[in-house]
């Protein structure tokens, strides 16, 4: 059974049909890519899955549970974690606080613990501290743990977002253009980190990318989206050769 199954998802912004008849099956541990020109509706698909918008039509199921109509925090707590195309960090919080914050749904000490600092709170906060530091280690920024995020270079901020998403212990990790704005060196590092995260934690990954190199090297299956519709789906080799893809997208602006 697929982990995530989306059937016939369509979404309108007013009169604009941003996504049309979108279907998706993600199996555990799979790495999938979503490519397409700017404005094709890729980010909208992420926003629909993670509950920021509700689809006009269609169904979204995670392990058989319907996700449509749930609040974003509920969907996230079920194991769908994401990063954002335009970074969304908390500007007054430190790196460590970012990652610990994403443990919110895992904490059980409640308001009594928060008000009175019970031993249980001590225990749970210490545990989440440990997990957060491990994740920072994994993405290579443990030395920045106590820095406020606004002081960090762009590449490091992207890693904070990644570590924060991982703290949810996701079943599927959604990465919205994880290498946007990076130079070639940072890009290689980010690809290594994504590979390593996948190797060590083994969750499924669904990533939106602009750079062909990234999707072609990382993904097992790629979908191409144009004007809200999937025009091709297949392995990197199939996508590379697909005449519709070349015609609509690749041939014009991107080379391999």
């Amino acid at each position, binding site marked *: 059974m697929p982990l995530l199954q989306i059937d016939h998802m369509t979404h309108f912004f007013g009169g604009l049909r941003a996504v049309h008849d979108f279907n998706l099956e993600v199996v555990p541990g799979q790495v999938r890519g979503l490519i397409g020109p700017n404005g094709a509706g890729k980010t909208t698909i992420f926003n629909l899955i993670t509950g920021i918008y509700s689809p006009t039509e269609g169904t979204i199921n995670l392990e058989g549970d319907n996700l449509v109509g749930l609040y974003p925090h509920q969907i996230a707590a079920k194991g769908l974690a994401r990063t954002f195309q335009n970074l969304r960090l*908390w500007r007054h919080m430190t790196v460590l606080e970012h990652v610990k*914050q994403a443990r*919110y749904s895992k904490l059980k000490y409640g308001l009594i613990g928060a008000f009175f*600092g019970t031993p249980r709170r001590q225990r749970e906060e210490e545990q989440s501290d440990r997990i957060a530091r491990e994740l920072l280690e994994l993405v290579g920024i443990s030395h920045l743990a106590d820095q406020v995020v606004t002081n960090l270079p762009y590449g490091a901020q992207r890693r904070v977002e990644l570590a924060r998403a991982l703290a949810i212990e996701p079943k599927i990790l959604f990465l919205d253009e994880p290498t946007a704005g990076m130079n070639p060196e940072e890009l290689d590092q980010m690809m290594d980190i994504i590979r390593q995260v996948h190797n060590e934690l083994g969750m499924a990954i669904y990533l939106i990318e602009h750079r062909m190199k990234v999707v072609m090297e990382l993904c097992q299956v790629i979908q191409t989206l144009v004007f809200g519709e999937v025009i091709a789906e297949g392995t990197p080799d199939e996508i590379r050769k697909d005449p519709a893809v070349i015609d609509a997208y690749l041939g014009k602006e991107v080379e391999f």
Partner: protein
Amino acid sequence: MAATNNNSSPVRRRISQIFARIREPVSGAPLLGWLLGALVAVILEQLIGLSLARMLGMSRIPALFGIVIVLQKPSLIPSVILYDLLIYVLPTYIIAWLSTAFANWSAAKLLNFNKWVAVLVHIVLIYAVLHIWCDVSDYRLLVVRLILVAIIITASLNVINGYMGEFSCSHPGFIALGAYMASVLTVGLFVDDNFYGPALLPTNLGHFLFPVILILGGVVAALGSIIVAVPSFKTRGDYLAIISLAFMFMVKSLFENLEFVGGARGLGGQPDWATLPVVFSWTILSIWIINNFVRSTFGKSLNAVRDDEIAANAMTVNTRRTKMTAFLFGAFWAGVAGGLFAHVIRYVNPSTFGIQMLAEVLAMVYFGGLNSIQGSIVGAFSINLLSEALRPLEIYKWLIIPLLLILVMIYRPTGLISFTEFDFMNMIQPKRKTKEEVEYAAAAD
């Protein structure tokens, strides 16, 4: 020492050198040493304060460091400065300096023994200093209790406006709800008065139940806050500010029209139960709980909601629950503070809880510093002192405080001390060890 940056003027460099030299001897003094110094200072004032004041040409001990006198009789400014130096600054400084070794050693011993005992000893010392200081005049006693209440109010407003970053104007409404609830219970049930008639229950029982009464006031304020919290799910910024302002006026006119609580005439005759130890204990308790909360991951959710709500949601934070908690929690403490306030002043009146109080509480939060317990304490303290100092200028006070607020917003938009963590356990730690201290500790052990 005093390595300031190169482009500062020679005068500034000289001044910072002087300050560094003054700070040097006491740089190793722990909080315990400073508290011992303050204790000596307030005892000294009891012993020789009056004679010194007379010698310097003042008729009485200056009540609030002389800030009130300064505006009335500017000619006394040198006397006031001299008095403050001789009575407060020098003794505190000298004792903190001389006791450094002993204080560091005792602080370490205490912390080793039990950290809660160590905290308690420090709190008791702070109380002792306040108590002795207040012994000198009833006016001081009143002002100190009002400042302690203001600290609760400021910290609780900071939860909503600072930690969660909503511009809420409803705090006077919450304070009023707590003040009236507590007053109706104490005046109505436990004392003989003209308005509600003879006491229905023994006064002693009421004294005993006073904490429960204050908590009930807090609960009523928290319930009232739901009216503001629910719209905050959907709206932020200006709209929420307007809704919360409307709430404040609603509460005010509610009490103006409720004859049951005295209407516009107000309600008096509250028993004198908000004594210094009572108010002090509530302030400590509220700071402890508020600080615990804002340092937990649940409390940090307020910051996440403030800085980016969509990201907070995507990271599993239940933002509605977070907002509801912040409002209920902030309003609860405002209500408790309201109950205390009513029993310090021993009279409440709807017009107390209007736009002037709003200006004052906002000034305390935004001047002191957003997202900070230290800032809340500093804000409550300084705005209250200022407000007392400006009391003779009644009308101008309402020019100067808003003006101050505007200046702060321009030059330090987040306030004096903002975005800090308050770690009392860290504050009471012994400071660095000098050679003498090591010897002292060896000898004492």
